[in-house]
Every structure is written in structure tokens, then in C-alpha cells.
């Protein structure tokens, strides 16, 4: 078993390198991904090694980046797109929703829309406006897309490869605040499937479901809660469309309490869906209503106050408290 320690950014880089080595039809496209290696250096060195025919610096037009990747997919290529920051994916929204999501259906399966749209998402890096968005709900709501998000270097390494190899379009959400976190990567064993949820910490009192950046926050909260005698089970969702209802339900049936933690604003979000789905599935197990700890219904604020906007350990613990109070 070959394991190595690396950052998530590096793990993504290595994962893409492997995908490109394995399949000559794999291309990368995005703004500044060539010589610069991307603003986060996730594609560092890849253009040098694979050439600018395969690692394509794109003119600045997100709609055309996605639109041309669709055309490349029609010709049999698999393009992993880098959108420079979450907030810049919206100009491509029409191509994603009206074309990427629908062409496999429209062509009765003739076209393989095997493209990946990499979105460095979520906040927590003190950035200016539009650089800290959590747009995943838009894509989860859209039929025809798949959405995943790793929270560890190991998952980043494997999930990017699996997403590129997948025949469906995958919106690949990268928690940018975790790019520089290091972790062990097992280079031989991918572990769970692309859309499987993983129990990161077992517990008995409350099921805490998180994804992306919030997994770390949830784990810290679990640590703190344990010190106070409350046992949190922390689930890393990994797949957002589809998400892993079974793993969440199994946990909820034991704990009777569900808390969803997300960086996105709450309304009509992934958290709403998890609550609605799990409430229906586990109605008789619920000792309290499923609750959410999320951002607020405001545009991402000036980053000097982003720590109030993004769920904190304290807010997770507060959610836990609220849940624990219900059946006492």
C-alpha cells in the first residue's frame, strides 16, 4: 500500500496527471491553467508535460469554455474544465443547464457528456466578492448533472479521476479553504465509490452531515461535543447528486437526530433536500426535527465578517444543543 502525504491541491494535480496519462482523450481547459498552473496552482506543470493542445489556456469567456467542451465531448474528448472561482460559473449557466445536462438525453445516449467542471468553491480564505460562493444547490436541482465534493486529499486524488472517467457530466466542487490542508493519499486503493457518503467519526447522539469545507468544522465540533459528553456521528457526504441516503438514514435511525451543516445559504438548498428526504425516510426514528446550520440568506459578505456567515464550531454545537433539547 503506497501512501503519501500531500495537500489537496497537489492531490488534484496528481489525480489529473494520472487521468491524462491513462486516456489521451482527456483535456484540461480553463483560464490561466497553463504557464501559471491556475491561480491555485492545481494544474501546475501539466501544460509543460502534456502540451498546450491538451492543457488549454482559454480566452476569458466561461460560456464558451463550457460550450466548446461540449463540442469536444461530441467528438469524443473528455475535458476537465477549471472555473477560476465559484462566482464565475454563472456566465456558463445556460450551457450547463440547457446543454451539458440535457444532451445525453436529447441524443438518446449517443453523446457522452463526460466532462468535468471543476469549481473551487466555498469561502474562508478572506477573498473579495464572488470568490467564496457555494453554488452547489443550483446544480443539484438540475437533472442531468452529477455533483461531488471531496474533503480530503485522498478523496480529491481519486474522485477527480473517477469524475473524469465518468460518462456523465460532473460538477466537481473543490473546497478551496482546504486546498492547503495535508493528508494521506493511498495511491492504490480508492476506497468508497464516487457518490458514497463516509462516516468520518462514529457517534451515538446526533448525526451531523457535512460536505466540503464543513467536514473539518463538523469534526472539530464533534471533538468539542465529546468533551461535554455528547457524541456526534460525522458523515462526509462526498456525493451531492446523488447523495447517499442509506448511510445517512442508517445513522439517523440510531441517533434520532439530524443536523446538516453547509456553507451555502439555507433556502431551497442541499440541506433542505437532505432534511426533506431523511424526514420522510426516517419519520418514526426522529426524536427532533432535522435541523440545519447554514449560511444566511444574504450575499456572501465582506470577508472580514465571513466567519459569522460560515457555520462555525460554535454554531454547530448550538444546533446540537437545540436538537438535544427536543426530547428532554
Amino acid at each position, binding site marked *: 500500500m503506497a501512501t503519501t502525504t500531500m495537500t489537496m491541491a497537489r492531490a488534484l494535480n496528481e489525480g489529473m496527471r494520472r487521468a491524462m496519462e491513462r486516456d489521451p482523450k482527456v*483535456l484540461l481547459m480553463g483560464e490561466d491553467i497553463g504557464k501559471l498552473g491556475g491561480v491555485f496552482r492545481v494544474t501546475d506543470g501539466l501544460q509543460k508535460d502534456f502540451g498546450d*493542445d491538451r492543457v488549454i489556456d482559454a*480566452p476569458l*469567456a466561461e*460560456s*464558451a469554455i*463550457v*460550450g*466548446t*467542451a*461540449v*463540442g*469536444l*465531448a*461530441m*467528438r*469524443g*474528448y473528455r475535458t476537465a474544465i477549471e472555473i477560476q472561482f465559484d462566482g464565475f460559473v454563472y456566465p456558463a449557466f*445556460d*450551457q450547463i443547464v*440547457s*446543454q451539458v445536462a*440535457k444532451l*445525453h*438525453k*436529447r*441524443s*438518446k*445516449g*449517443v*453523446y*457522452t*457528456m*463526460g466532462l468535468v467542471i471543476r469549481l473551487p468553491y466555498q469561502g474562508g480564505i478572506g477573498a473579495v466578492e464572488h470568490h467564496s460562493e457555494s453554488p452547489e444547490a443550483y446544480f443539484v436541482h438540475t*437533472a*442531468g448533472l*452529477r455533483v461531488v465534493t471531496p474533503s480530503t486529499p485522498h478523496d480529491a486524488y481519486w474522485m477527480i479521476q473517477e469524475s473524469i472517467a*465518468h*460518462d*456523465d457530466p460532473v460538477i466537481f466542487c473543490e473546497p478551496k479553504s482546504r486546498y492547503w490542508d495535508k493528508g494521506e493519499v493511498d495511491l492504490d486503493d480508492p476506497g468508497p465509490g464516487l457518490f458514497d457518503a463516509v462516516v468520518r467519526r462514529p457517534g451515538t447522539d446526533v448525526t451531523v452531515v457535512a460536505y466540503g469545507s464543513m467536514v473539518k468544522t463538523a469534526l472539530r465540533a464533534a471533538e468539542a461535543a465529546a468533551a461535554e459528553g455528547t457524541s456526534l456521528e460525522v458523515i462526509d457526504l462526498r456525493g451531492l*447528486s*446523488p447523495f447517499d*441516503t442509506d448511510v445517512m438514514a442508517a445513522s439517523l435511525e440510531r441517533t434520532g437526530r439530524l443536523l446538516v451543516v453547509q456553507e451555502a445559504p439555507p433556502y431551497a438548498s442541499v440541506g433542505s433536500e437532505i432534511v426533506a428526504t431523511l424526514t420522510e425516510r426516517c419519520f418514526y426514528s426522529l426524536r427532533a426535527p432535522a435541523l440545519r446550520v447554514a449560511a444566511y440568506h444574504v450575499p456572501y459578505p465582506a470577508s472580514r465578517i465571513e466567519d459569522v456567515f460560515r457555520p462555525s464550531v460554535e454554531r454547530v454545537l448550538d444546533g446540537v444543543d437545540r436538537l438535544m433539547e427536543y426530547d428532554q
Partner: protein
Amino acid sequence: MADELVQLLSPEGQRVDHPDYECSLDDTAILGLYRDMVIVRRICNEATALQRQGQLALWAPVQGQEAAQIGSGRALAPGDFVFPSYREHGVAWTRGIPPADMLRIFRATETGGWDPQRYHCNLPTIVLGDQVPHAVGYAMGIQRDGAEEAAMVFFGDGASSQGDVMESFVWAASFMAPVVFVLQNNQWAISEPTSLQTKIPLYRRADGFGFPGVRVDGNDVLAVYEVSRRALERAREGGGPTLIEAYTYRMGAHTTSDDPTRYRVDAEVEVWRHRDPIERVKALLAREHAVRSSTFEEVAAEAEAIAQALRADVLAMDAPPATDMFDDVYAEPHPWTEAGRAEVLAFAEEAR
């Protein structure tokens, strides 16, 4: 206008000299184009009739634009790939797509209609401009494959205002993509005249992006053919993109839901009737190539037979089973989609 318009055949069917282009087609080929246009018009009329009879949800007539579509479509090589919008029935015809397949989306029995890889013809794209970057991306794939092929993409004067179209121009120029943009300027975007989209001729849009633009008489099939052939060759040989503005006219309504009397005058339609794309070829064939009226009658009879077969095919075209909506949404099963399928099946079961 005259001096910027490539024309090889006058509305009266007289040959016109042009400094840069000349007709490379022989009798048989010209008769072939004539035949195509007659058949496409007949298909269009049949579809309109079918819609009137409640057999189609909608129809987008191509009448008036047959030369623009047949001339460009016939210039394509089999290996080229073409990206139509929603009105390119003539182009679809040149790719060998069965007429009934063209009507599937209009009968609302499916959202596609044919196998795009088989015919090297993408499915109709309804969102204005969305198909244009697809063509450019496809062309970038051609480059990477080192193939001598080209992509050709169709859009309208109205669609030319969409950002996606202009971003595609940027890309095509930047990557020297082997793509030919065919802008059918049929003077109208539903009720909006071309003058709302631009104050200068649309072919000149290409000037701003650094590749050639050419305006061709879109009702002159010979000119459209030659201009398209040249542009496609250029693309295949690595010369980069070309914008062709086929200057033509939508003789009918925008779609069968449209009422053009609300926004345009009959006199305008009359003017264009005298520029009919079919009549001028017929005149040429009759005069210059001594094609006999019996031949024209044969073509008409063939078109009639195709129309009748089309009618029969369409009437036989049933709604798909309800669960069709769940097929092919994903390449691999997605549990949320499959949950829907299960619900529909259970419901159907219960109802029985």
C-alpha cells in the same frame, strides 16, 4: 448591397459573373440541387399541413431559405459535422436524415430526432446560439485528431446578437478552428427586423474578430454552394474560420404559432417572391441545360411521394411510453431518476 453580395445566378435565372467565385457544378449537380430544394419545400408544406391538422405541436417553416440550406449543406463532405438550429430542415435533408425524423421534435414525441453521429449532424438546438460554441469545440477536436474535416454551424440574424455566438468568434479566431459559421439572415427574428440587431451588414461582424466574412445571395443556390465549398476547404486546410452571411428571406411565418401580419407588410413578401430560390434554378435549367418539363414533373412527383410517405410516418408516430423520460438522462443509473421511474411504473400498475 449589390456589390457586397456574391451572386452567380440572378433572380431571373441568368448567370452572373463574379470576380472571385465561379460555378463548378455540372447539369446533373445543378439538377440535384433543384431536386433537393423542391423536396425540402414539399416536406415543409406537408409539415405545415400536418400542424394545421393537429398532428404536430409546432412547425418552423423553411420556405424561402432552401437555397441557403441546400447550397451550404451540399458543400459539406461526409466527414464534416454540421450543427443546425431549429429551422435547418434543408440542411438535415442534405445529411440524409429521414424527413420523419426531422419532425419528431415538432410532434413532441422526443427532444432529439436522430442519431447525430450517424448522420454527422447535430440535433436541432433551440436555445439561440447555444450550438455555436459546440461547433467550435468540435472543430478543436478535429484539430487535435489531425483530421481534414470541418464543422459548419447555422444560426440566424437574431441569434447573432447572443453572447455565445460572439464568444465563439473569439475562440474560432484564437484557435484557428476549422469551422464555418453560416448566418442565415432571413431579415426577421420573429417580429424583429435585422436592423434591430445591427446597423451594418452582418457579414462584417467577422471583421471585428479577424477572419473573413462574406455575404452571399442566400437565394442563389449556386453562389451559396461555391462560397460554402471555398470556406469549408479553407477550414479543412487549416485556414481558420469563415463567416458566411446568407442573405435570404423567411417567406412564411416564424412558426405555425406566429402571425406575421402583425409586423410586416405583404409588399415586402412580394418583393422576395420574385427572388424565389427554386424558380431561378428552374429557369436556368430549362434555358441553359434544356431540362424538359417532364423532368421537373418527375421531381415534383418524387417530392409528392416523399411528402406522402412523411405523412404516413408522422401519423404512425406515437407518443413514447411515459418511462421514456427516465431513459438516457444519465449514462449510468442515478437513484433520483430511477426513483421517478419506479413511481411512474407503480402508478401505472395501480391504475391497471
